[in-house]
């Protein structure tokens, strides 16, 4: 970590030209990965990311300079560069750091840096063997383990001094199957803000079964019907809300009026059945943090309550334009990115419907159990995402799997069309969300729910 006196000097230099607020974000991160393909380790990597991002703001302007020259001269030079963008009178600011201490709610029981590559390899071997044993149609199994240990220091001109250590561990599996005519792949990642115990606690047998059966199942899949239809999404499908409304509730686009939900606080934007929260405090969840990347404690933010828009995800800088306080949602991929408002763990709360009854109520439609990635344009509300796993529903019964499905829609319509919400809420997923401040880990969640009408794209 950096020395307090040096950070003080850097902040002082950054404020020299009249900046109102200055911040230092220091990061020292080790990323380890090990990939096994076809029973053999194919690659092993060890990377160090280390540097500082200095931010100075004045009104609705910010300057951000990042560097990995961590010498005193290097840091002062970077601070000077950031200050150059502001031309005003220096204010006298007395900075007294008050070190904020907290107890982490994301304990690491087994530091992944203490686990040898050999031991990690053993787990990949067992997982691979289990996966190969699941089917005679397997062409290739790929298993990998990734761990990241990020030490951060966030200090600012208001006297904030926070240090944190964030440890992530994830196990991934992909299966490619080939029946001589068709080739399919399925993939899953199980990650958490935990140490290597994350891998040790995974039921490898069940993980292998989940992924291999997902790939094999596609041999019997039919082309997805296309058009507008009712859709039931199981409680694994939380990414729907990430795209359909999460991004459009981020201050990044709301503050400048570039979101369909800007200025709609207090208005109804979804059906009464929908209550959506973004919670950065869930212990050990992949998308959680003790403090965000501006050093603000994460919290549970309610965004939509019974269909009414009640809150946005707000970072310090955009909060000024909106006259709102930060919500502990400011994040960045690494020190080269200025932070901005992002999601953590976004999920819909349980409703009252029985999931089985929801399915049974559909005469003809689609049952979706797994989504791939998607995207949204906050300014229009148009979103799309890829469906990895879905089945036709006929007369209330889940039937054949379908392939090649896509959902598109507009946030405003789709949220209103949610007319049944199950009682089986679940937060899951080990997602990586890419946006303005880079790629950050996120989780999603929801109960089983029914959308009365949405456009499904498919080949039939």
């Amino acid at each position, binding site marked *: 970590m950096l020395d307090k006196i040096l950070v003080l000097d850097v902040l002082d230099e950054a404020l020299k030209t009249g900046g109102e607020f200055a911040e230092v974000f220091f990061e*020292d991160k080790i990323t380890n990965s*090990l990939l096994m393909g076809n029973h*053999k*380790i*194919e*690659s*092993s990597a*060890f*990377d*160090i*990311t*280390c*540097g500082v991002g200095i931010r100075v703001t004045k009104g*609705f*302007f*910010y*300057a*951000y*300079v*990042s*560097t990995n*020259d*961590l010498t005193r001269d290097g840091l002062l030079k*970077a601070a000077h560069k950031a200050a150059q*963008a502001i031309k005003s009178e220096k204010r006298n600011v007395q900075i007294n750091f008050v070190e904020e201490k907290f107890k982490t709610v994301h304990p690491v029981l087994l530091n992944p840096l203490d686990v040898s*590559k*050999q031991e990690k*390899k053993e787990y990949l071997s067992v997982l691979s063997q289990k996966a190969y044993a699941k089917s005679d149609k397997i062409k*290739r199994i*790929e298993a990998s383990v990734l761990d990241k240990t990020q030490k951060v220091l966030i200090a600012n001109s208001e006297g904030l001094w926070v240090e944190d250590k964030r440890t992530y561990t994830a196990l991934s599996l992909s299966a*490619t199957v080939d029946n001589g005519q068709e*080739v*399919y*792949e399925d993939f899953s990642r199980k990650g958490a803000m935990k140490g290597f115990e994350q891998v040790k606690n995974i039921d490898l047998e069940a993980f292998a079964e989940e992924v291999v059966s997902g790939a094999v199942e596609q041999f019997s899949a039919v082309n*997805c019907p296309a*058009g*507008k239809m009712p859709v039931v999404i199981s409680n694994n499908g939380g990414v729907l809300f990430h795209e359909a409304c999460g991004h459009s509730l981020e201050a990044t686009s709301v503050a*400048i009026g*570039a979101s369909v939900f800007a200025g709609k606080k207090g208005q109804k934007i979804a059906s009464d059945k929908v209550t959506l929260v973004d919670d950065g405090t869930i212990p050990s969840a992949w998308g959680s943090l003790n403090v965000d990347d501006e050093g603000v404690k994460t919290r549970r933010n309610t965004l939509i309550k019974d269909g009414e828009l009640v809150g946005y995800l707000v970072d310090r800088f955009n909060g000024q334009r909106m006259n709102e306080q930060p919500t502990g949602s400011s994040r960045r991929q690494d020190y080269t990115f*200025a932070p901005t408002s992002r999601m953590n763990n976004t999920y819909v709360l349980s409703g009252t419907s029985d999931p089985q009854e929801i399915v049974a109520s559909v005469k003809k439609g689609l049952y979706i159990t797994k989504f*791939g*990635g*998607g*995207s949204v344009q906050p300014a*229009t509300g*148009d979103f*799309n*995402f*890829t*469906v990895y796993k879905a089945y036709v529903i006929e007369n209330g019964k889940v039937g054949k799997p379908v*392939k*090649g499905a*896509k959902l*598109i829609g*507009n946030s405003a319509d789709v949220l209103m069309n949610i007319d049944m919400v199950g009682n089986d809420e679940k937060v899951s997923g080990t997602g990586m969300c890419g946006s303005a401040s880079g790629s950050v880990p996120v989780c999603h969640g929801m109960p089983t729910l029914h959308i009365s009408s949405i*456009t*499904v*794209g*498919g*080949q039939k």
Partner: protein
Amino acid sequence: MSIEQFIEKVVANCEQRGLKKYQITYRESESDSLSVFEQEVSENESSDNLTLQISVIVNGKLGKMTTEKFVEEDIHMLVKQAVMNAEIVENEDEVFFHDGSGDYAKVKPYAPLMDKLEKLDKVAFLKELEAKAYALDKRVNKVVATQYGFSRGKLIMRNSLGLNLSKEEFGAYAYVYLSATDGKLNKTASEVVSFDKESDFNAESLAKKAVEKAVAKLGSVEVKSQKTRVVFENVTFANLLSSILGIFSAYEIDKGYSKLKINSIGKKIASEKFTLIDNPHLEKGFATASFDGDGFPTQNKKIVEKGVLQHLFFNLSMAHKYSTKSTGNGTGGLGTKPFNLYVEKGNITKVELLKVLDSGIYIDRLNGIHAGVDLVSGDFSLGAEGFVVEKGMISNPVNQFTISGNLYCLLEDVEEVADDLEFKSRSIGSPSVLVKNVTIASS
């Protein structure tokens, strides 16, 4: 300690350990960007970044590590990590460093018009860009972002076999992203320039292109779900191409992540109208380079010629495995990459191409490309935007719809290619392309 000294110490440590094969790749990059919002400078970002990669080959296996932390005491640990990474690898694919032999082409990569760019008042340019965007059409309701950026990078590659290469890279752009509204629905558009042409210095023309694109989409109608013929706008087809280029990688094929096979070379895999070129020597190309990530000389080649597969992307390791020569598409790791990859232009104009289409859909934007294409099965399903084409003319805009199909079939279904080849601030280019058998779904 300077970086040069640091590198010398890394080399010394490798030698001390008795390593015969080691390689140092060092990157220096700096970038600056500026944004204007509501006629004020809203953001000014800059970064200086140094990255050092140490690669070693131990018993034919590759081990790598990268660092951004240059502390002398760490050198021992850094090299050790690279060696440990090599030691755990079991894969039988042998890896190689290159000794620097062979002919390296003299190339002229993309660079902005520096004199003119240095004189440009960037803040004034962005202010004008934003103001003009609002002034050009009153339906423009929000200029979401205007940004200018400049970057410069330097790469040095050296290894124990005698390789010693370096190159410089530049980037420059101005960008506008805006939305227009008809009172009910918003439509967005963006436009970018790369300051390598005189006309790129005109803020008004940049604003105009974006505004025209956004307002043209207003008043959109629903399109009928159907199987139809479509024209992909040049830049849009290039976007699609960028998501499928992995199918031509020998590495991806070797791992089964492409339907193509190594012995597909010489076979017909696409329509005879389709020719795909990877030209690392393209003058002013955005990925123009004389050597690849393995340090091997790059070469100009046709990947697909009139529908017949001619080359795949080979790096040194895959070339050895399949007893062929590297095509100079190495990454320095296991995978491969293309350089300036583009569809060869045809003989007819875009206007004539639309006449050939006669009736169908014109697609000028694809959404969710990063997730909607499965290279293994080839199935794709994407969000799309565009216009109805009637009697060979572009007519009504249509609401977002989906297009689906199979990319391996799509290559066969290319019916005609126009002559409007374009690289839009990137290394992947295409002319507009007419394709049949695309399934469209809407409400």
